[in-house]
């Protein structure tokens, strides 16, 4: 225990971990309310129970604002990592609310957004693709001799895709400083892990790629931090691609519209007891790394921040339809359809 806390983290840092876990939880819960109010346009995804894995892992990375830091590829289950990397709650709400002001100007949804200065890159939906992309991002680090690393999150189900395999294998062969985080939350939509792989553990996949893999309790933010910190250090030192399995449980449906009725409620209750925020809070208190009032203040702070962000986003406009036209190419404009021109004539095109 003291060992974990001795992992180089001071009191302020320990509190910071708590803060980002709360921020993710609060943001998502606020989003549920926004959805009930009809503000959310697409699906709504929760990272409930996975906040510790996301925040603990990303905390091991070097965060910079100027495009020289490490790189993160977040997922819908890694909201906390996104916030930690400087994605703001207001942008988060803007994305879900499809606002004109969103980082993608309403073109893409939820955590599918980007800030190359801060070093995070949102996914596309086809699962596995981001492993290929991160292989290339980290390849560029190696080619240029930079000591940066990249971390890509991906679910247990995503490991079945050819893209996951091709991306991870490419990274391994090329010695790319990539950390493959397997979010082993035991489900892929309604499909249990055993229907996505017959392997006993995702760590068993590592030797097949000639890389080192380690597994960790994904509800334990400090345990995750420690394991990932070692993986990051190895990658930064030139040992190539690393795999880390986060063991936890998806405590909500795949998305808000999924009734989650294929999961044994007892199992959910079991995992509620391992809630990453509750257990961490208890530990901080019991080991004297924080006082109740400090943590309450942090929580209150995140609530206020989330509330303000939600209100800001809600008040903002949707994009103009016409703005759908720009940015397909850097140098060629998509024309206004001739039927929508001032005096409609196909020959005008």
């Amino acid at each position: 225990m003291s060992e974990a806390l001795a992992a180089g983290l001071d009191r302020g840092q320990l509190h910071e971990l708590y803060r980002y876990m709360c921020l993710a939880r609060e943001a998502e819960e606020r989003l549920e309310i926004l959805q009930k109010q009809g503000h959310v346009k697409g699906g709504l995804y929760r990272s409930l129970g996975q906040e510790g894995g996301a925040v603990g892992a990303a905390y091991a990375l070097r965060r910079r604002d100027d495009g020289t830091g490490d790189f993160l590829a977040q997922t819908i289950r890694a909201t906390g990592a996104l916030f930690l990397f400087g994605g703001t709650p207001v942008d988060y709400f803007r994305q879900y609310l499809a606002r004109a002001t969103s980082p993608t100007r309403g073109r893409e949804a939820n955590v599918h957004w980007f800030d190359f200065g801060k070093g995070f890159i949102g996914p596309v939906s086809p699962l596995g693709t981001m492993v290929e992309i991160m292989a290339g991002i980290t390849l560029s680090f190696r080619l240029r001799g930079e000591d940066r690393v990249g971390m890509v999150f991906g679910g247990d189900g995503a490991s079945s895709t050819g893209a996951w395999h091709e991306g991870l294998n490419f990274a391994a062969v090329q010695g790319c400083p990539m950390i493959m985080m397997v979010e082993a939350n035991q489900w892929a939509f309604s499909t249990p892990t055993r229907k996505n792989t017959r392997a006993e553990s995702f760590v068993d996949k590592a030797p097949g790629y000639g890389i080192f893999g380690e597994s960790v309790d994904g509800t334990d933010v400090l345990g995750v931090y420690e394991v990932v910190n070692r993986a990051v250090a190895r990658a930064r030192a030139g040992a190539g691609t690393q795999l880390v399995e986060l063991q936890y449980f998806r405590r909500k449906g795949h998305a808000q519209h999924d009734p989650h009725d294929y999961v044994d409620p007892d199992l959910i209750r079991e995992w509620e007891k391992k809630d990453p925020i509750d257990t961490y809070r208890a530990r901080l208190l019991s080991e004297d790394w924080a006082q109740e009032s400090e943590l309450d203040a942090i929580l209150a702070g995140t609530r206020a921040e989330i509330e303000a962000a939600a209100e800001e986003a809600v008040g903002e406009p949707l994009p103009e339809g016409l703005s759908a036209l720009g940015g397909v190419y850097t140098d060629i404009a998509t024309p206004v359809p001739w039927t929508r021109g001032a005096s409609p004539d196909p020959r005008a095109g």
Partner: protein
Amino acid sequence: MDAAIPEHLTRTRRGEPVTLLEAISEALFEEMTRDDSVFLMGEDIGAYGGAFKVTKGFLDHFGERRVIDTPIAEGGFTGAAAGAAHMGLRPVVEIQFMDFISPAYDVITNYIATSLYRGAGPLPLVIRGPVGGGNRGGPFHSQNVEMAFFHTPGLKIVYPSTAYDAKGLLKAAIRDDNPVIFEEHKGLYRAPALREVLPDEDYVVPLGKARTVREGRDLTIVTYGSMVHSSVEAADTLDAEDGVSVEIIDLRTLLPLDEDAVVESVKRTGKLLVVHEDTRTGGIAGEIAMRVNERAFEWLDGPILRVTAIDSPVPYSGPLEDYFLPQVEDIVTASRYLARY
């Protein structure tokens, strides 16, 4: 009522109207009942009944050997379906959203479409799933996929617009000895206006045959899927406001294209507008224009025109997606232009 049939699949038996989605479920259910070589594979189609609940109740009824939850590997399980088809089974594969057919692009175009030609025998195999926009699904849950496969000889592509057709075409597709891509517009799945009472007997709608939705004198609109309904709406307006009489042809099968139906209609009306929800450049309108040029150029009294989505990925936000998609108003405008030509 047959106790063996899950209650929600007995609407047609009970003479009740069904949605397009229910028509598809019935088609699958009846074909699986009729022919035990038919089986299903896909993500979350078992206990969950599929992302859109098309196969709800199937696992309990048919068991794990005929309703198989797959790993997330569209290429892998589509390829496996092909292998099973070689052995005499008739797999029906569900792609959760048809946007995710792209990892299977290689096996579909290079293996499946060429099997017969390469001497490896017929490959009866249906690949079905939801397509289309209007749902705020963003770039990866809204695509139409016909043009990814339209250029591949050996494939058939089906895209129904009504519950009746959906059921009859899917049954025909399952019985067809060639691989079929079957697109289901998710905006039509539960559209109340599309509910209809279906015949309570076995029927198929043959692949490769278009349907004349309404007859008209002044102009032919060739279309399919959701745009059939937009075109009908536009035709009503044109009729009422302009006295323009529009003939509407629903292709139903995109590949092979029912060239004869299109050509004959154009020979009667002299004008052709193609309407598709899919993006513009490289859309199916081009092939239709080419065929009409080849076969009916002299009958053309005006240019062949098209109304389509704009050339961009499908944007997420409502106003953007509405701008992206072809609207009834676009069809009206283009038709007016042609009618006056």
